[in-house]
């Protein structure tokens, strides 16, 4: 079947590359609304919405 079981063993670096980026984005989002209003709030909404959109994408996409 096609769940990439043909994928070669990934290193920890490969496994955690995307999660690291998401983690940094989360921190940016958490801090930015603290720093200021207006644009800063917007940055916060955008970055913190990413995990939600990703969950929606992975679970709802038709394979």
């Amino acid at each position, binding site marked *: *079947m096609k*769940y*990439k*079981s043909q*994928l*070669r*063993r*990934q290193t*920890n670096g490969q*496994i*955690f590359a*995307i*999660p690291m980026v*998401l*983690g940094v984005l*989360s*921190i940016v989002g*958490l801090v930015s*609304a*603290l*720093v*200021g*209003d207006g644009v800063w*709030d917007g940055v*916060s*909404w955008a970055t*913190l*919405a*990413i*995990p*939600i959109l*990703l*969950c929606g*994408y*992975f*679970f709802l996409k038709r*394979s």
Partner: protein
Amino acid sequence: MLMLCITGLPLIFHHEIDHLLHEEVQAAPVPEGTPRANLDLIVKNSLSKDPGMVPHFLIWDPDDANALMVSIGKTLEANPVDNRIVRVDAHTAAYLDAPDVTGRFTYIMLKLHTDMFAGLPGKLFLGLMGILFCVAIISGIVVYAPSMRKLKFGTYRRDRLRVVRWLDIHNVTGIVLVMWMLVVGFTGVINTWAELVIKVWQFGQLAEMTAQYKDKPLPANPSSIDAAVQVAIKAEPNMRPAFVAFPGTIFSSKSHYAVFMRGNTPLTAKLLKPALIDAETGGLTDSRNLPWYVATLLISQPLHFGDYGGMPLKIIWAILDIITIAVLITGLYLWLRRRQSGVSIERVVIDASASDHRPAYTS
């Protein structure tokens, strides 16, 4: 943890829920620039329906510029948690209302969420649960690696057995939310230490600032509160008052009005700076930034509540909370399943994969 996530959900919107469920006497609408009432009169009026009670704190309502709140207790020594909050009109000094909040839905949720009606021990217990939650998240990161060795990020095997699907849900939701969960979890833990942090400040910095007043009794003829706030504003012209702690309360000495000033950005609004005003002479005694441990507590609060970026942030917070509930439920299921069968989830998944080598009839 599940209980904390569920009770926390309505608390994100506690202000809106209270507004919806409970009538509130509104302050009179006034044109901009209307002079504000004398604060001494406001405090006096707040006691008009409860003679004999004493004011602990005078608080500027962060959500309503037209109202002030006075927290009054039976005695100065009474625990402020049991105080009544009287709302007073900021311009006319008229008594608005003093709602009993203890029967409210949001109050019950708050108590369940913070101490389960068990006071400080309850808080510290929930704090310990919070620490375990953070430990569980970190162990989750550790086991994420072997589990994803041969899978692409975000894999969801929708046509497999439930145990495989739920493992995928747990992995995907857990890893994309990991930083948010850690921050909200850990700042929640810090909040459970609030009472201890305030005590340390009281016996540390506050005692130091008021050392020469140590053995003085409460002032017999306290000076004007309004004047004290003016002195504080003069000392910190770029800040606004957040609240005043009266002499003899937990946030002040016996001889001072402690005027806690706030800045104007979301961050500096949380980092309060107390100005201590001698309650006999009305002069400024000292004004210092709060020490790092109180500052940490004050910064932890918005990061836990999610109330610092308007309604969109609250909605995002609520959705992230719901996804966290999914992480917890799938995690619990996987753990129970493993305990029952005595077989590791990896084993189950491999067995399930083996059965997928049957002729493929799914697309």
